């Protein structure tokens, strides 16, 4: 029998981690975890967006076996979604047909203080994503939707100012009115300078 090893001085806070003894046999899991950015949490804490059916033991087992992350403790939180009227994507959303979207579940794990993790920094230059172009596109779409909406006809028109100027010029006799079709030849091509005349 070999002599027992001399005991060494351990750390002041021993590693509380115990490997999970997974008894639930899941061979082909079909869900996703989303690692969230938590800048105000200590670096040895990490938060995930998880499916609602996942429990704390499952998460601990999953992270240990798939990622090799030692989880000391888990906190979970289910966030109820806000009630809305009718389901998303309904053709004609009916008022007062209340619908509550599915809740979301967040789980925060505690890792040993010796293995902190920081979410990497966000990019500062969004040129590869064409951010400005998308913003302009969204803005234009919103404008178009507003114009097509119920209040669309009451919105001020973009060419209202120039129309007013043209009407005033006509009323003061600075410009003579002529029918718009005279600006076009029979082949449908503009005849001379179109912008000079006053349109229909």
């Amino acid at each position: 029998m070999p002599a027992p090893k001399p005991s060494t001085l351990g750390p002041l806070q021993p590693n509380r981690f115990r490997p999970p003894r997974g008894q639930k046999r899941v061979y082909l899991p079909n869900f996703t975890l989303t690692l969230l950015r938590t800048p105000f949490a200590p670096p040895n804490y990490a938060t995930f967006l998880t499916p609602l059916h996942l429990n704390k033991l499952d998460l601990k087992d999953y992270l240990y076996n798939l990622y090799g992350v030692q989880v000391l403790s888990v906190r979970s939180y289910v966030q109820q979604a806000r009630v809305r009227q009718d389901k998303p994507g309904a053709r004609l959303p009916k008022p007062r047909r209340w619908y509550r979207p599915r809740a979301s579940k967040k789980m925060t794990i505690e890792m040993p203080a010796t293995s902190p993790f920081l979410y990497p920094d966000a990019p500062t230059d969004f040129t590869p994503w064409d951010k400005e172009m998308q913003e302009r596109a969204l803005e234009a779409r919103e404008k178009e939707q507003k114009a097509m909406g119920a209040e669309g006809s009451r919105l001020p028109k973009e060419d209202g100012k120039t129309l007013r100027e043209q009407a005033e010029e006509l009323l003061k006799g600075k410009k003579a009115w002529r029918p718009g079709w005279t600006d076009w030849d029979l082949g449908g091509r503009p005849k001379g300078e179109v912008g000079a005349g006053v349109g229909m």
Partner: protein
Amino acid sequence: MSRILPNTRLGYLASRNGPPVFLAPSPFLYCQTPASFSTSSPVAQRRTRRKHAPHPNRGVSALRRTGLRNPVEMDKYPLPVPVLDPEKRSKVAVDKKHGLWGFFRSDKKALNTPEETAAFGRPWVVEELRHKSWEDLHSLWWICCKERNLLATQAYERDRLKAGFGEAEILERNRAARQTQKAIKHALTERYYAFEDARRVAVADPEVDLEAEPGTQAYTPIYSDEAALEPQYPVNQRASNSSAA
């Protein structure tokens, strides 16, 4: 004075011959009252709160940040000041092999560009997976799981940052991972159906003994036409030899 004035008779005379009565000193002002006699120290008295006494913590408010009424031991030490500037905080050393890096690509960037996301091959197809072992298929499934976790993390971060375009690339890559998973299930289902069919045939086959112990003979050819084929198939020959022995 104190000896004379308590005499009311003298006081009366004084009112007649001297100053008026209301100007005279009060007869009770100088009268000697007996001192309370007690040998116990006043600090030893019982500290019970009287019914209408003020609350001992009166005026102490956390909302108004008044502080405590009496100094405490901790007053000798200054309070720690929070570091509001994130750049001045002490740096945290993150292990390069930390497990949570599995939620990011090898370049350890929070968000990959659409070009980087779109640069990938193609999903596995069933024809390729039919020849793989269960261990290979199982590993491939878990690789797909990790990839989908990564893509979900990046999609969430992209939404949060309002980074711009790039959603379609993430969805496309996620679709490829899901198609691979679908192909894995397809191959496994085929394998299971083949096993079931083989088992059904074996149950009906009198040559096959399904309840044979492992390591013993489970297949015993009994038909003569198979014996005629012996010279052409060494496998059958070996089986017949062992059965003969």
